[in-house]
């Protein structure tokens, strides 16, 4: 309170101490803020420049939203007013910048923008510096409004660069003319592509060359400040050259200059040179030039005393790596890993793993590298890394034998890391037979080697090893007795851990009950993993920016971790308790592979056969059998429509007499906009679960129909219907399901979906069946919405804004302002947006509260780029959602879909 009194004093000292108090100590205490705002308002209106400055400083230092609301409109006026003093203009520019950064929506754009650009011509260098800072920030949002600043900035820059060191008296810092302003101008130019006007461009290139030339001149002063200032400009010049990426000549010069700095005795310069080179390495013109410095960089990695410099060197090695030098770089990084600082080990491990995979010429090298990695830094090898190596080994026949041999050797080390045991256990369990021929690695030796590690491992690893043992029983029948002994031991069967106990019991029973054939089927070699984006890469991205990874990856990772056991667990139930359908198959001498690959659906088919009744009976010969079996095959892609209207039973209703969707269908659909799995529908009779996955323009959906009653459903027939012209937009292939669903049973239906072009309405699922004689029918909307075909896209802030600008037609944008229906939690919102399918981009929106996303909708006919922005307003409990896509209906549709989610 006293402080506020001080503000309204007329004495300078009192005012000053009041402002100091407020800017240092005040937090947003609402009552006080109003009083303070009042005092500030008075000072801004006064013509006393000192008071105005004080007030502006205070606004900038507090920079709260309330202040922004109160003053955002006044400050631009002060900034461009003709009679403002230089120092006031300077403060006003920065104050505006600060408010803009705090809450961009508050600062109105207007006619003042053009005049701000002209501040670049101001006499006073301080004003120019402040104005450049302001414009640099503003133009990221509205590049077009500030386009005129390019030529002004270039001419200003060339005046500074070409001036003698004494021209700009006050702003010359250790013989370097206006270093800060030059740096700022160069930063500003980095917001734009190279100037189109040839004259401006010529002038700029000249400037850049002058700067590069000056670097070669002998220093005018021995002082470190002189070289600092000079090099600050130089580095900024180089990053501008890299940004333009169009002048091979300059790029190579820049690279050479950086090469010199790499050996400079100033650590700061080495650090910065490494950092700039990282960006330089990604340019195609200079990639080769950067590679010539590889030895210096490796040397830096080895000998540098400073950890931050070493880390930069490691980054650079990662950036400059390609097929030709991968082996050298990876081995150097491995060597470095032994001595690396703990904080950066995990990152290096990830990088090594990625490089090794990306540039592997032969996979035995890859396996060697990863195993080395685990040996050297086992603690830092995250799960993704060893999952990945298992995936690759499983998918590539040629390395399996080698991998088995190598892990076997690695396991022989007296102390080996648990991750090594995991990899070893898995690989030997799968491919141990490939090395069993060698007496040194005969099955009993393999087993005792693994078992010697067993007691030292954590529960998860032990569980994995148990799975390995049961696989050994299958691979090497001679080990059966030993392993059964191990499983039977009290420490396993009565283990305190439920998982271990369950596995021991199940495996023991399985091994003693099941016949060799059954064992062989159950414990078959894992099928190849589907190719997918490396989860390691996703992890590295996540390390770099927490928002960059999608929640999808978690799901995938879990899937791959379960694969190890999942392949074993579910199958025993179908095989060890042979279902009647399997018996029937046996009776009718159906080809065994069909039974092995799809016992469940084969069973359904058989039921189908009998349900068709007498009509089907006479033709039980081999020919219809084959016909049925061929239906088991995935439908041929050429005739998706044909299958839809396929040989359905006569009772199947035609698409014409489909009832309207149930009233709550829309609501049910909304639940699935941001997720792929869950319960689609449930009533007293029936539960429908959905599990779906989408990749690019294709999707697969599993529908699970569960009969909740104890009575059989008859004539059960689900069909997919395309209302309107959806037929041309979306192709859905369905597989038939059994016409009867037993009480308490569940049947599964697979839908293959292909998105042909953008669509607005979801397909309908029509369901008919008889329950206790009464016909039932139900129509639902299938949870297939356009956003399912989203492909997340990562992009930098600049790209984003550039694209955002490109989609500026009013029709391309859809915006919605709506009240929040759910509590506003940033994490939940994030998860929803990721589930929606777009990538979340960090550090794009200046306001960290806002969410910005990008993605491409993949359809067969075309791709639609989408950018979205969600601005929550916690106070009002409102959101503003803006979508820009290249197709107008898509923008609107996505906007509506997404708006219902919050």
């Amino acid at each position, binding site marked *: 309170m*006293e402080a506020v*009194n*001080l503000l309204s004093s007329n*004495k*300078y*000292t*009192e005012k*000053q*101490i009041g402002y*100091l*108090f407020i800017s*240092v*100590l005040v*937090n947003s205490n609402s009552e006080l803020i109003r009083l303070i705002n009042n005092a500030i308002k008075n000072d801004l209106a006064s013509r006393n420049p*000192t008071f105005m400055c004080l007030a*502006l*400083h205070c606004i*900038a*230092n507090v*920079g709260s939203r309330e202040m922004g609301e109160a003053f955002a409109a006044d400050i631009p006026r002060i900034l461009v007013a003709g009679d403002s003093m230089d*120092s006031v203009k*300077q*403060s006003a520019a*920065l*104050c505006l*910048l*600060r408010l803009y*950064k705090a809450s961009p929506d508050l600062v109105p754009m207007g006619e003042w923008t053009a005049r701000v650009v002209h501040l670049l011509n101001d006499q006073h*260098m*301080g004003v120019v*510096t*402040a104005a450049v*800072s302001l414009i*640099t920030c503003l133009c990221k949002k509205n590049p077009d409004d500030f386009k005129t600043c390019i030529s002004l900035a270039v001419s200003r820059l060339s005046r500074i660069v070409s001036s003698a060191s004494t021209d700009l008296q*006050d*702003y010359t*810092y250790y013989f370097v003319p206006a*270093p*800060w302003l030059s*740096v700022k101008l160069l*930063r500003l130019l980095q917001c734009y592509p190279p100037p189109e006007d040839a004259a401006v461009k010529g002038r700029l290139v000249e400037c850049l060359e002058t700067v590069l030339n000056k670097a070669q001149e002998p220093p005018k002063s021995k002082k470190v*400040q002189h070289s*600092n*200032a000079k*090099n*600050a400009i130089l*580095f*900024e010049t180089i990053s501008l050259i890299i940004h333009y990426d169009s002048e091979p000549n300059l790029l190579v010069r820049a690279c050479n200059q950086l090469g010199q700095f790499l050996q400079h005795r100033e*650590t*700061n310069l*080495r*650090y*910065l040179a490494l950092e700039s080179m990282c960006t330089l390495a990604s340019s195609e013109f200079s990639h080769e030039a950067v590679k010539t410095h590889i030895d210096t960089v490796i040397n830096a990695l080895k000998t540098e*005393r*400073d950890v*931050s*410099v070493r*880390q930069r060197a490691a980054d650079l090695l990662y950036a400059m790596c390609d097929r030709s030098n991968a082996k050298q770089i990876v081995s150097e990084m491995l060597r470095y890993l032994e001595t690396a600082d703990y904080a950066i080990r995990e990152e290096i491990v990830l990088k090594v793993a990625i490089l090794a995979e990306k540039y592997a010429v032969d996979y035995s090298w890859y396996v060697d590298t990863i195993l080395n990695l685990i040996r050297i830094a086992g603690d830092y090898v995250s799960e993704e890394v060893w999952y990945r190596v298992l995936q690759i080994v499983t998918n590539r026949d040629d390395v399996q034998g080698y991998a088995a041999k190598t892990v076997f050797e690695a396991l022989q080390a007296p102390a080996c890391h648990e991750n090594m045991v995991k990899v070893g256990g898995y690989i030997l369990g799968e491919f141990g037979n490939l090395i069993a021929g060698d007496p040194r690695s005969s099955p009993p030796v393999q087993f005792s080697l693994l078992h010697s590690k067993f007691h030292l491992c954590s529960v998860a690893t032990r569980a994995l090893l148990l799975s390995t043992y049961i696989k050994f029983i299958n691979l090497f029948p001679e080990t059966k007795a030993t392993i059964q002994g191990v499983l039977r031991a009290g420490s396993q069967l009565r283990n305190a851990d439920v998982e271990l106990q369950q596995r021991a019991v199940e495996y023991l029973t399985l091994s003693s009950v099941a016949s060799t054939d059954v064992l062989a089927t159950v414990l078959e070699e894992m099928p190849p993993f589907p190719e997918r984006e490396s989860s390691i890469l996703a992890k590295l991205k996540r390390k*770099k920016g927490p928002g960059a990874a999608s929640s999808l990856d978690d799901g995938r990772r879990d899937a791959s971790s379960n694969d190890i056991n999942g392949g074993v667990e579910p199958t025993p139930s179908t095989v060890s308790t042979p279902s009647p359908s399997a018996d029937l198959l046996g009776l009718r001498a159906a080809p065994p592979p069909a039974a092995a690959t799809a016992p469940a659906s084969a069973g359904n088919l058989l039921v189908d056969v009998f349900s068709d009744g007498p009509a089907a009976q006479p033709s039980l010969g081999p020919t219809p059998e084959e016909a049925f079996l061929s239906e088991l095959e995935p439908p041929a892609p050429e005739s998706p429509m044909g299958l839809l209207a396929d040989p359905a039973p006569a009772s199947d209703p035609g698409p014409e007499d489909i009832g309207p969707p149930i009233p709550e269908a829309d609501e049910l659909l909304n639940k699935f906009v941001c997720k792929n799995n869950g319960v689609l529908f449930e009533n007293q009779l029936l539960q429908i679960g959905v599990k779906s996955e989408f990749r690019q323009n294709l999707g697969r959906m599993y529908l699970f129909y569960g009969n909740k009653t104890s009575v059989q459903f008859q004539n059960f027939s689900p069909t997919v219907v395309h209302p309107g012209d959806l037929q041309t937009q979306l192709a859905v292939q369905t597989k038939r399901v059994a016409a009867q669903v037993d009480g308490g049973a569940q049947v599964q239906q697979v839908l293959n979906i292909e998105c042909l072009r953008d669509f607005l309405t979801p397909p309908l699922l029509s369901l008919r069946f008889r329950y206790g004689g009464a016909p039932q029918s139900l129509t639902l909307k299938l949870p297939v919405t356009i956003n399912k075909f989203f492909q997340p896209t990562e992009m930098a802030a600049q790209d984003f804004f550039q694209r955002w600008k490109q989609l500026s037609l009013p029709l391309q944008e859809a915006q919605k302002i709506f009240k929040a229906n759910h509590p506003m939690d940033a994490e939940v919102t994030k998860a929803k947006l990721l589930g929606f399918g777009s990538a979340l981009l960090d*550090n794009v929106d200046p306001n960290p509260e806002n969410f910005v996303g990008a993605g491409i909708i993949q359809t067969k006919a075309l791709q639609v780029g989408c950018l979205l922005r969600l601005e929550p307003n916690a106070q009002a409990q409102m959101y503003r959602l803006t979508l820009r896509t290249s197709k107008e209906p898509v923008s609107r549709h996505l906007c509506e879909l997404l708006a219902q989610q919050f």
Partner: protein
Amino acid sequence: MIQAILVFNNHGKPRLVRFYQRFPEEIQQQIVRETFHLVLKRDDNICNFLEGGSLIGGSDYKLIYRHYATLYFVFCVDSSESELGILDLIQVFVETLDKCFENVCELDLIFHMDKVHYILQEVVMGGMVLETNMNEIVAQMEAQSRLEKSEGGLSAAPARAVSAVKNINLPEIPRNINIGDLNIKVPNLSQFV
């Protein structure tokens, strides 16, 4: 943008703490402590940049620091600032302090907290670099002190008291005055209003 400016001595006692983004008091103190530990273990002749500690935004932010005799000047900045530029800015700030206080030392920062803040205010405003011209800053400061003198009395009294204390040469320097003494000053001032 500059996120924070921290000045502490070789023992980690904060001498000037200025945040341009709101952090609760206890987090601020943790940040100072963390930064001190990050900076302390670095030799003098290795580079002046390092990635920020976990509390202050991690690798998105850089700590750029300089070590002068007994004091560390640490600026925490985001990627929009040029590293060498900030390094020079620290130099400008210190040289300005030197000009204003004539041979600046740690004690000046303790006893002339307000003045140091005013100088900083002329250099950095709300996290943005305002003025880099030393002469300009010094001129501003001189104008301020002229104004102060012309209004007389008010700030002279505490200053006199301070210099008296300084001359006594207390064995123990009072700790962390920065917030405490301002609170003391304000009630004193009320009688003048």
